[in-house]
């Protein structure tokens, strides 16, 4: 990809966020899509590419009345939207379409009109994990962490600090689900879910959606919003079953996706002003910081605990409060992208002054897949 060839020109979340019993899942996709298209100053008629996950792209395109020239139904979990951004850049550069809409909608809390999770016998999960009583994400995603604690010195207190710091960021956001300050003791004394994970180390379960509109940088100049350029991007995948992750202290998918993103962007880590790392659980920012190369192996927990990522710290991380405090519908990646866009536009309630480069990193499944987007407001 060519750095800055494509820009995000429209971005929005659903009108409401949190508890939305009056909309089904497809309704959340559409609400977010219409908001993002309006944000761009465009109409549905201007959209000729559609990408989505959760629902298939045909259904979303039809629901919105779009006959697309390009459609992408890549559905690899919560990072699907980072991956869609990368694919959309390729499609626009190749001339397959001009203006891409990426949608997310998920009735995570009220479960209105949702898809069931498909399980079929030939999946490794159904034969080699589910029979042992792993079911919901807190019982799966957390399994590697005891190994990381022993091998890399990650502590329960450091994991608790991830939640504490992100709550500090959430306090800036009127739309965040949880905004009241918490302490390490609050986190460690909250309900035990799956040892060593307490409730406050686990993401929320909420309803919501979000959408992005992307077009060529040349066309973006004539549109109403300050363009947010895609400077680089990466994606990867490792394993659908967490037990087969090669190294429990580091994600191969994170490392590959991050490497591709930085290489394509042609940027150094020191040039990054703002960072989002998908935090379904408190250990993910630790793995992300290390696997993307912002800190050395085994240094992520201490880096957060020492305050480097909190308001006023040198590397603002998860400035919306993340999946732990802002919202988490199930496929949270879209909300991380929305906060990166706000930061690059200069409109976040937790604005990092003068931020020019934002890295937005997502995970899909339980360390199964990954997508990373590097954004900038500097056309270069």
């Amino acid at each position, binding site marked *: 990809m060519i750095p800055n060839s494509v820009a995000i020109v429209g971005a929005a979340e659903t009108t409401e966020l949190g508890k939305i019993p009056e909309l089904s899942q497809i309704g959340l996709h559409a609400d977010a899509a219409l908001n993002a298209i309006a944000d761009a100053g465009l109409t549905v008629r201007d959209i000729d590419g559609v990408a989505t996950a959760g629902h298939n792209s045909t259904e979303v395109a039809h629901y919105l009345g779009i006959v697309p020239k390009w459609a992408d139904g890549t559905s690899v979990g919560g990072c699907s939207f980072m991956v869609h951004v990368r694919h959309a850049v390729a499609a626009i550069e190749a001339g397959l379409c001009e203006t891409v809409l990426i949608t997310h909608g998920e009735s995570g809390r009220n479960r209105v009109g949702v898809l069931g999770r498909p399980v079929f016998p030939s999946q490794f999960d159904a034969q080699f994990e589910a029979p042992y*009583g792993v079911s919901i994400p807190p019982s799966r995603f957390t*399994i590697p962490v005891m190994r990381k604690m022993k091998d890399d010195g990650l502590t329960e207190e450091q994991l608790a600090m991830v939640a504490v710091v992100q709550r500090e960021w959430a306090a800036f956001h009127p739309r965040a689900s949880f905004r009241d300050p918490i302490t390490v003791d609050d986190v460690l004394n909250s309900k035990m879910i799956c040892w060593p994970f307490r409730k406050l180390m686990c993401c929320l379960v909420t309803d919501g959606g979000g959408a992005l509109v992307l077009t060529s940088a040349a066309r973006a100049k004539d549109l109403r919003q300050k363009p947010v350029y895609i400077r680089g991007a990466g994606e990867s995948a490792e394993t659908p079953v967490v*037990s087969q992750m090669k190294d429990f202290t580091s994600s191969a998918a994170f490392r590959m996706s991050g490497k591709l993103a930085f290489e394509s962007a042609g940027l150094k880590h020191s040039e990054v002003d703002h960072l989002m790392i998908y935090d379904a659980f408190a250990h993910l920012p630790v793995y992300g910081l290390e696997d993307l190369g912002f800190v050395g192996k085994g240094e992520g927990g201490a880096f957060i605990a020492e305050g480097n990522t909190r308001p006023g710290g040198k590397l603002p991380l998860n400035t919306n409060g993340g999946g732990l405090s802002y919202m988490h519908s199930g496929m949270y990646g879209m909300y991380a992208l929305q906060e990166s866009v706000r930061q690059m536009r200069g409109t976040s309630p937790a604005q990092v002054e003068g931020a020019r480069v934002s890295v937005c990193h997502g995970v899909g499944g339980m360390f199964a897949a990954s997508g990373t987007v590097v954004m900038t407001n500097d056309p270069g």
Partner: protein
Amino acid sequence: MSTTDRVVPTPTPETRHYWDGAQAGELRLQRCNACGDAYFPPRPFCPECGSRDVKVETASGRGTLYSYIINHLGAPGMKPPFAVAVVALEEGPRMMANILECEQTPEALVLDMPLEVTFEKITDAITLPQFKPAGAPK
């Protein structure tokens, strides 16, 4: 016929040898004749080198506790608290298991402790390979 609320595996042609082995009280792995690696979960080719020249062998049944969580929420057919562990097998591959015949506490479940395979019949047709502390009485 399932006699449990637990998720019961449905063997596929590629995994049948593994489940037949468990039924017979053997933990079966596959090994690549080309590169020599033992691997898991089962498939009719080597995930390291792609060779189809592979064989089925019986594992030693010895391993160590690689990582785990203790589930306090429960799951279908499982009473909390129960540990879900990943066991590092002596032959190299890792697999998921519950740790039987052991207190389900962080004090009793110590990383890298030696484990040995045991078998838990969950239906007439399916027996699950499981693990217990090495040397625990039958």
